[in-house]
């Protein structure tokens, strides 16, 4: 019988990951929040006037909102417990390791369910179109105080990018998490890969989700209602998502 040893490249990567995980967590949370604060102060919200209008067009169905809510809630709980695991500070949460781990598993199941669901229901709306190039050229207008509304379908190019970003990392985090929940079923090196990739995906998702939350609320007045009552104003739709607005007007 041959003995398994660690792949040196992986072990070195892992040690690097362990050494800097604290700093990386800080950058992906506090760092991103500071960036957001900077953006809010220097550039500020986009098209403030659209925030005060009456929401009347259905943008997200109750099913979509439920999926989003479950994914959001489970993500927050997973992120908090997950960071505690990564920094070996579960006690700070006032929980025992076993309790925190069970909570993590239950919400991981909900996250998996809602993520796979979200990936499926928003796939069609997230396929890039030729006009999305124009959105990227001006970065959605987020880098200027001027009000710019580049072309956009139901989702704009930035949202589509976030869809693919979160899809990629969600699948990665779900699979690696599944492996880590069954340590007896995998080899040592596979588990170590899973551990590192689970952490990296989590960092990516945490940073991305914080930015996503900002863009869907403070950065774009009139948007936050989408995930609460599901509606937006006609003006909002016409300005932010002209191609989508045309589509629903024609129906």
């Amino acid at each position: 019988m041959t003995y398994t040893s660690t792949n040196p490249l992986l072990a070195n990567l892992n040690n690097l990951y362990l050494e800097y995980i604290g700093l990386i967590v800080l950058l992906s949370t506090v760092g991103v929040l500071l960036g957001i604060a900077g953006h809010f102060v220097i550039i500020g919200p986009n098209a403030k006037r659209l925030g005060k209008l009456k929401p009347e067009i259905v943008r997200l169905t109750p099913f979509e909102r439920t999926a989003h809510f479950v994914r959001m809630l489970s993500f927050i709980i997973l992120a908090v417990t997950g960071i505690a695991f990564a920094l070996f500070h579960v006690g700070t949460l006032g929980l025992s390791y076993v309790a925190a781990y069970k909570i993590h598993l239950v919400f991981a199941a909900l996250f998996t369910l809602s993520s796979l669901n979200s990936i499926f229901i928003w796939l069609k709306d997230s396929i890039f179109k030729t006009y999305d190039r124009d959105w990227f050229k001006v970065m959605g207008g987020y880098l200027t105080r001027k009000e710019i509304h580049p072309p956009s379908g139901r989702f704009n190019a930035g949202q589509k990018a976030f869809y693919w970003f979160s899809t990629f990392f969600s699948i990665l985090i779900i699979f690696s998490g599944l492996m880590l929940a069954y340590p007896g079923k995998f080899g040592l090196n596979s588990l170590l890969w899973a551990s590192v990739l689970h952490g990296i995906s989590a960092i990516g998702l945490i940073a991305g989700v914080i930015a996503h939350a900002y863009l869907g609320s403070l950065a774009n007045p009139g948007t936050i209602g989408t995930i609460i009552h599901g509606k937006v104003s006609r003006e909002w739709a016409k300005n932010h998502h002209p191609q989508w607005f045309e589509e629903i007007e024609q129906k």
Partner: protein
Amino acid sequence: MRKHFLISSLLVLVLGLILSGCAGNETNTKKEKIDTKEVQQMSAYIGTDACITCHSETGQGFAMTSHAGIFKSLDQYNTDFKQMVNVWDGATKENPATKAINLEDTYGVMMDSYVVGNIDGFSQELYRVASLEKSEQGYELVAASLKDYNSDGIQDWSAKAYSCAECHSPGLVAQGLGIKNLEPGISCETCHGPGSIHAQTKRKEAISINQNACITCHTLGQPSETEDGSSLIAENHYGTRNWFASDHYTSGYVNCLSCHTSHEVNKEGSMLKGDNFTENCASCHKDENFDIEEIMWKNPTDLHDHVTRDHSFGAIPYEKIGDNPETKEVEITDPKIIKKLKSLIK
């Protein structure tokens, strides 16, 4: 809508199947032999706080043991360490360096007596910069040793070289990745090795679990000899050295952890499985009655209460070693026993 419902139900089913297998997955069902030593070489130290994240009960038990108290941090004493003293390098004979240091900047206290620290510019890495002396008020700070270095008629504080670190504060001399996470004294990873890969993969085989950990310090060692080589000088861990001559050890059936605990203490506060000596022996020797002073003798000339009770369990009786209580250091002068012990060393 119906399509959505169908997909969701399907997903719930799949997840249910996955999670149903979640219980009892700790054992390694994958047939894989892990090279613990090699894995540990690639692991980093993560520190006690990380270990007790999962092993909290083990951590609490360990905190009660004498191992945990072997090197304590300064804050565990009500002594005021915040004081500047001028110390001299007692480890150098010619032109010893001198430096003013704040005793607050030391690493901690070994065995409630040696205050251990590093002094910039001194010849050695670690020093006993001061000592604690038990007084009615608690512990008092005194010099590790006194000597008039500058011939001004006043005794100066001499810092002595600290050579006990390997066993008494292994965290101070550990090598490898993540050593900043280690406490100075004995911690989980002193015996179990660096734990990062174990913590990440939950694999038992990624951590050391064997009595070699005990032998690292409670060692066969290299007994010191008198100048003419005719007798052996007792060392601090004399008793555990003689363990290797015992029938317990040579039979191969008994090891340290047959009688001793690693993470808990008995009613007397010692790391024994039974509540006392008699009970401990009785777990195997039911009808026998041993006299501890005979079967585990304590050397009467042990100056500092350093020497462990003999662990040869009768293989090396006190009467036979040829000790002369008149000479301060404990000695083994019997040539047969010296030969026996030396043959065990190899």
